[in-house]
């Protein structure tokens, strides 16, 4: 059995829960932490014998506002948006509760938050310096795409590629199964290589652009980000999702998030478009409009 890291200072009851989790983890084929509430489950298979993950899925955690514990909060412009702009409260999806930032990075995260709704695109060199990329309708990267408040669809066929199509910004990513080649270049949605470990789809993601954020609270990373995602079916309607996040430029150690993805069950439900460029253009470019003669 593996030891609980010593630096984790939490009540004994939580330690017991964590111990139970590690016990569960240590036996092969058991469901992961996010599946604690679920009894043992053997998922249906595709014709090649792997668990069938096809479907439209959505997270219902509020991590897009903040990965860590957060109270309900006003939006950045309450005088304009009122309660429309406000965000819901939510519990941390980070194992241990806190993201292990290096001291400078914690200060940077706070600065990000204070500037989350500011943009300045008038200088190419500082194009990405200000503002939450979500505000600017940039592709959200991984793992943020998995817990944004939008559905996504997994398309798993008989080729060596699994597609994940996200409603937000029409972002897509291809998971290359059992792929050897490293990321040829950084991309907003990264370079995803998948493999099966028992009933779990494990996706190793590198080649991520450094500019994406994890949430609206300013949580961030560098282009050295390495994410390992684990998708495990735990019922016909749920996937347990876990991601291990590693970035030695920003964090003191790897850390982990977990939550549950829900299958969307509405009849004839389909992914719709959330092409948000037209919703952010005024913010980005409005100041450069011709001022007279219109």
């Amino acid at each position, binding site marked *: 059995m593996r030891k609980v890291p010593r630096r984790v200072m939490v009540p004994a009851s939580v330690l017991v829960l964590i111990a139970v989790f590690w016990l569960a983890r240590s036996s092969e084929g058991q469901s992961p932490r996010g599946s604690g509430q679920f009894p043992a489950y053997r998922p249906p298979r*595709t*014709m*090649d014998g792997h668990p069938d993950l*096809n479907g439209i899925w959505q997270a219902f955690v509020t991590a897009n506002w903040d990965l860590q514990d957060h109270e309900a909060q006003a939006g950045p412009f309450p005088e304009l948006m009122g309660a429309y702009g406000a965000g819901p409260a939510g519990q941390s999806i980070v194992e241990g509760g806190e993201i292990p930032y290096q001291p400078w990075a914690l200060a940077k995260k706070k600065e990000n938050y204070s500037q989350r709704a500011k943009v300045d*695109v*008038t200088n*190419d060199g500082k*194009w990405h310096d200000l503002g939450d*990329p979500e505000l600017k*309708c*940039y*592709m959200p990267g991984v793992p943020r795409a998995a817990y944004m408040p939008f559905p996504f*669809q997994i*398309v*798993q*066929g*008989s*080729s060596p*590629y699994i*597609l994940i*199509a996200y409603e937000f910004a*029409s*972002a*897509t*990513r*291809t998971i290359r199964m059992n792929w050897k080649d490293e990321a*040829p*270049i950084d*991309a*907003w*949605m990264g370079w995803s290589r998948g493999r099966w470990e028992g009933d779990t789809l494990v996706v190793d993601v590198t080649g991520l652009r450094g*500019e994406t954020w994890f949430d609206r609270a300013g949580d961030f990373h560098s282009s050295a980000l390495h994410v390992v995602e684990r998708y495990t079916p735990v019922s016909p309607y749920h996937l347990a999702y876990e991601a291990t996040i590693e970035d030695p430029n920003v964090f003191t150690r790897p850390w982990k998030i977990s939550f549950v993805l829900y299958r969307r069950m509405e009849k*004839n439900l*389909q*992914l*719709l*478009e959330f*092409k948000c*460029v*037209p919703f952010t*253009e005024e913010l*980005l*470019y*409005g100041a*450069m*409009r*011709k001022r007279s003669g*219109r």
Partner: protein
Amino acid sequence: MKWIAFPVTFFVTVSWTALAGQAPAGTGKPKPAKTPPPARAWTAPRTPWGDPDLQGVWNDATSTPLQRPGGIGDQQVLRDEEVAGFQDDLAYNLTRDRRDGGPEVDVNRAYNEHWMDARRLKITADHRTSLIIDPPDGRIPPTVPLTPEKQKARAARAAAVARFNAGLPNEHQEMSLPVRCIIRTDSPPYLPTIYNNDFQIFQSPGYVVIGPEMIHSARIIPLDSRPHLGPTLRQWLGDTRGRFEGQTLVIETTNFRSDEGVIFGDANPATYRITERFTRVAADAIDYEFTVEDPMTWTRPWTARIPWTKIDPAEQMYEYACHEDNYDIVHLLAGARTREKNGETVPQK
């Protein structure tokens, strides 16, 4: 089976005199790809769940023009001795590494050979003179007279384009949808362009998904006969439903938004119909055929066929980001404001 049907329709549409005039082979001319391998040697693959298998990364680049160039008349297929010249002329007109247009034209050729998809400089293997196969003249049919509203919209659009071309756009909203990175070549019908002509097709039971390289959207096509979205739920890329007819994936798309530039030829979204057909005709080839019609726009329906070629598996399709680093849109606006300060105006024609 489409594999049989393809050469048959091909020859039927060919001018027989052109075929009769074929030069004998063996003269070192470009390979006549007109002769397909024996049909019996190849069976269209099926997915494990029984659908025709279209999975893979495909490329639709060709220099063969959508519409037949003038001066060729009704000749639908080139004679062998015409192939090289036709292809060279098209390549010359498409290429941008030229310095024969003066400085302003040079600037507009900044997307030079570095960007050019090499496949874009080659005509289709069947040596057709246009991608349009119907009407027989290879041209988009005549347009019907525009309504006054449409005329007004066209005039406003033309003025915006003139401002853009003069480097004097008033605002981002009058730039085209591709410049704004809202939709690009992911909008049907799929037509070849200078770069990023790849499409990755994914399939799962009940779905076909087409992932165009530009701009990273997924066209998710349900095959379960469900109804289209309601009429007030419109999308930039429309709403697609599909079915297999034999070997052919047939898809129909409705619910397009009414913004300028969403639909080819700015046809009327209420009366526009587009049907696309995908048929795997060889291990490395799909026939992509589309028919569009709109009685408010064209005098008759028209159909084009574009070959899709499977790319080398070692050649991957990469993410095409657009809006995320759309520096150009800022440079264009900044340039316009500077030009205004300098007293520049849009040239009147």
